[in-house]
């Protein structure tokens, strides 16, 4: 397979084509993914999440520019939502990543969420692996940013940055618990706007409360994506988190539980698909549905009957 050979030679066109192949679940994509996964890889994955318009792409631009100046190779996956009605998507994250165009050591791929609701696209984890096998030192994932907590990022990344803005105070009160679960680093962007100091101190006290429970320290930093102020501190906070989890064994633990979650996902997807396709394998589904409609059975007894027939068959 010559595209694969080109991929191994680090040809970006081949990388792009392989991603398309896998994203579209084309014929043999599993063999392709398996072959890719056998290549050496050692990338570190950083997730950038947060509400829409908080400055995620702007910060990815600033961070990645620093990384490539240090001689690192960086892959970026930027996810935007697909319309649930038309399936179409407007992928605009590149607009704010202008410093990363035409760089040998950067590869950016925009992905539409295609019906997934956890902040990533269905194939994001697979594409992460492809970028890793391509030899990227860092893989940065920018989530959809639909305003709610996007838990999937935790399962796909080693360090997670939650980007907020000074106006996010109210939001934090309502989703405090979840936020603390996903954030390794808090970033208050747009510190040029009023309220940034207040939000930073709220975050710092939240972080302080949690500190006793966990060995890994969370940090909150302020940034201005427009002029680059604070971006060095953000990069430092990420580096520090990476250092702590790498030496403390936390990274291996995280990756272990991520892999388990991936298997569960894959099995669940198959079970659901199979169930949908063959639930009426013996004609009983139709029969039970009619009994439910006529009131002979209640919903949960109907479900019990189908469950027992299906899984004890």
């Amino acid at each position, binding site marked *: 397979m010559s595209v694969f050979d080109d991929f191994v030679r680090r040809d*970006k*066109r081949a*990388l*792009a*084509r392989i*991603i*398309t192949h896998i994203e*579209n679940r*084309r014929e043999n994509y599993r063999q392709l993914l398996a072959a890719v996964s056998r290549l050496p890889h050692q990338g570190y994955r950083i997730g950038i999440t947060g509400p829409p318009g908080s400055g995620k792409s702007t910060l990815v631009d600033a961070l990645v520019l620093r990384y490539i100046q240090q001689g690192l190779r960086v892959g970026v996956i930027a996810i935007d939502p*697909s*319309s649930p009605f*038309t*399936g*179409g*998507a*407007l*992928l*605009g994250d*590149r*607009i704010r990543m*202008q410093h990363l*165009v*035409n760089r040998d050591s950067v*590869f*950016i*791929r*925009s992905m*539409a969420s*295609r019906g997934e609701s956890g902040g990533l696209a269905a194939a994001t984890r697979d594409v992460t692996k492809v970028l890793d096998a391509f030899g990227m030192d860092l893989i940065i994932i920018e989530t959809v940013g639909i305003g709610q907590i996007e838990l999937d990022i935790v399962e796909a990344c080693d360090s997670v940055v939650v980007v907020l803005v000074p106006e996010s105070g109210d939001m934090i009160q309502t989703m405090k618990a979840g936020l603390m679960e996903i954030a390794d680093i808090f970033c208050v962007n747009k510190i040029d706007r009023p309220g940034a100091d207040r939000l930073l101190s709220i975050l710092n006290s939240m972080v302080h409360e949690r500190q006793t429970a966990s060995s890994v320290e969370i940090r909150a930093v302020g940034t201005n994506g427009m002029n680059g102020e604070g971006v060095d501190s953000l990069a430092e906070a990420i580096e520090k988190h990476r250092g702590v989890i790498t030496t403390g064994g936390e990274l291996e633990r995280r990756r272990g539980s991520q892999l388990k979650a991936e298997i569960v996902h894959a099995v669940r997807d198959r079970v659901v698909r199979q169930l949908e396709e063959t639930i009426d394998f013996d004609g009983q589904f139709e029969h039970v549905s009619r009994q439910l409609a006529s009131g002979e059975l209640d919903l949960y007894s109907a479900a019990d009957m189908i469950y027992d027939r299906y899984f004890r068959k």
Partner: protein
Amino acid sequence: MSDKIRILLAKAGLDGHDRGIKVIAAAFRDAGFEVIYTGLRQTPEMIVDAALQEDVDAVGVSILSGAHMTLFPAIRKLMEERNCADMILFGGGIMSEDEITELGRKGVSKLYGPGTSTIEIVEYIKGAVAKKRAGEKLV
């Protein structure tokens, strides 16, 4: 189910507004396309670099600054050099029939003047991508 159509839209040249191209981007999105919009003042190198990484089916470029006779051929040439010759190149701008014919010879599949209906553009790209994909399968 066939693969989603992915296209890249960009604005080349120095004129600074993007209302028109955003309307076209929205029309493509509403027709079920995945549209990568890269913004204003894109050079041919920037456009082809992004198109290559995004592995799009088609690239649409709006040029209103008058430099279309140099920019479109430069984009096409880079596409060929960088192994992206299979991508459809189309665009918009203000140009004469003769210029459109000449750019057609240089590999620009379709050019639209201001005020063309978005439906017409979307339908054209749908058809052109279907034709291109049918060809790919034979290989």
